[in-house]
């Protein structure tokens, strides 16, 4: 027996069947007839050489800019509208292929730059005393393993809280956004590291997601990104406070090297020892100088005393009567009056003589 439906019932049954058969479908194709209505509704077609699929989505769900000619991957569900038209309700869209990804990147970069999202004045550095770190990455990814290996080799004593998320694919960006929100609301961390190792432009395209870029820029906790390789630049990198070129580089930037630290401590102690040694040498040198100075003074005093003594001896020698007599002088003793006898002492003789006459000299 054939089923009979009202139009509404029929569309409802078809939609139920479609939903059962294709609850989530991925379609890859080229965008055509892209338009936004009333600033809310997005309409476009995704086509290949032969067929075109009409698509509908909300502007809110559009996380990366797309335009006609771009190759995209869309996720959604097929549906018959109440007007009996076929439509594909899109829940997520992302550009695919290097050209489309680059174009989308440039459009969004320009827009967000103009909004000031990447201003360097807003950037915060890595906390000096980092002991609590939040990590957003896939715990199965090689980049994550490298990161953990390097931080463990370089430093210890850190509490690292890891939020496991996808780091590629259509759901990655929204999962990373949720993890960022989690850390900002519940996580007791000083910095958040978003990590993902190298990959193709398609693999890394989730890091150009507008919502993710905005969430990074708005994070109350500083964010460091270590995404891809040195040459890869994503909007997430531009919005982050600190950009590391790779997960390994992020590990190096976030931790001190314990070997270097030990070396620094050794150098510090060596320099302190040198200060003590230098001061000791200086004191010794000062003491030696003082002793030398004192010795010089004593020498000088002795020399002056010796000269003085020599002078005095000379004077005493000059006053010695024998010396005077030796120079031909004589000493007369006795009463000096005519007729009296006086003694005359010369260097060689003692003479008795009588005074005959006395005259004044002048």
């Amino acid at each position: 027996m054939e089923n009979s439906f009202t139009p509404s019932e029929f569309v409802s049954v078809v939609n139920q069947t479609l939903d059962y058969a294709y609850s989530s479908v991925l379609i890859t194709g080229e965008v055509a007839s892209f338009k936004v209505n009333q600033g809310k509704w997005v309409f476009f077609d995704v086509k290949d050489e032969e067929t075109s699929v009409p698509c509908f989505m909300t502007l809110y769900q559009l996380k990366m800019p797309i335009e006609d000619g771009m190759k995209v991957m869309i996720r959604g569900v097929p549906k018959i509208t109440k007007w009996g038209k076929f439509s594909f309700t899109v829940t997520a869209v992302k550009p695919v292929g290097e050209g489309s990804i680059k174009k989308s990147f440039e459009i969004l970069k320009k827009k967000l730059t103009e909004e000031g999202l990447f201003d360097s004045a807003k950037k915060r550095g890595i906390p000096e005393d980092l002991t609590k770190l939040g990590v957003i990455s896939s715990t199965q990814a090689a980049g994550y393993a490298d990161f953990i290996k390097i931080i463990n080799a370089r430093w210890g004593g850190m509490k690292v809280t890891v939020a496991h998320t996808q780091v590629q694919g259509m759901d990655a960006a929204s999962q990373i956004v949720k993890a960022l929100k989690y850390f900002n609301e519940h996580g007791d961390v000083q910095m958040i590291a978003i990590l993902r190792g190298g990959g193709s432009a398609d693999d890394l395209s989730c890091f150009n997601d507008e919502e993710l870029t905005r969430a990074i820029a708005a994070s109350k906790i500083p964010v460091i990104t270590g995404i891809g390789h040195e040459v890869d630049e994503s909007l997430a990198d531009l919005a982050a406070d600190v950009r590391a070129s790779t997960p390994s580089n992020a590990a190096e930037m976030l931790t001190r090297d314990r070997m270097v630290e030990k070396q620094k401590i050794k150098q510090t102690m060596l320099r302190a020892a040198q200060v003590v040694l230098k001061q000791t040498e200086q004191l010794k040198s000062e003491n030696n100088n003082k002793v030398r100075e004192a010795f010089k003074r004593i020498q000088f005093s002795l020399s002056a005393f010796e000269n003085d003594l020599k002078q005095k001896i000379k004077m005493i020698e000059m006053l010695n009567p024998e010396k005077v007599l030796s120079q031909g002088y004589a000493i007369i003793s006795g009463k000096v009056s005519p007729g009296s006898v006086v003694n005359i002492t010369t260097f060689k003789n003692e003479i008795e003589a009588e005074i005959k006459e006395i005259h004044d000299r002048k």
Partner: protein
Amino acid sequence: MTENKANLNDKIKELDSRVEWFYSDDFKLEEAVEKYKGAAELAKDIEKDLDELKNEIEVLAEDFSK
């Protein structure tokens, strides 16, 4: 472990402060040997911490795909 790390950072700061004394106007040669001995012991302690401290890694149970 985080507490240990905090202690390690405190110890490094303490060492820096002790070493600064050697370059300061407060430096006295007669006190220097004792001060140096104290700083050297602290330095040794820090080196030991640096060798032994490990990071604590916790993967959250939250499912961010939902």
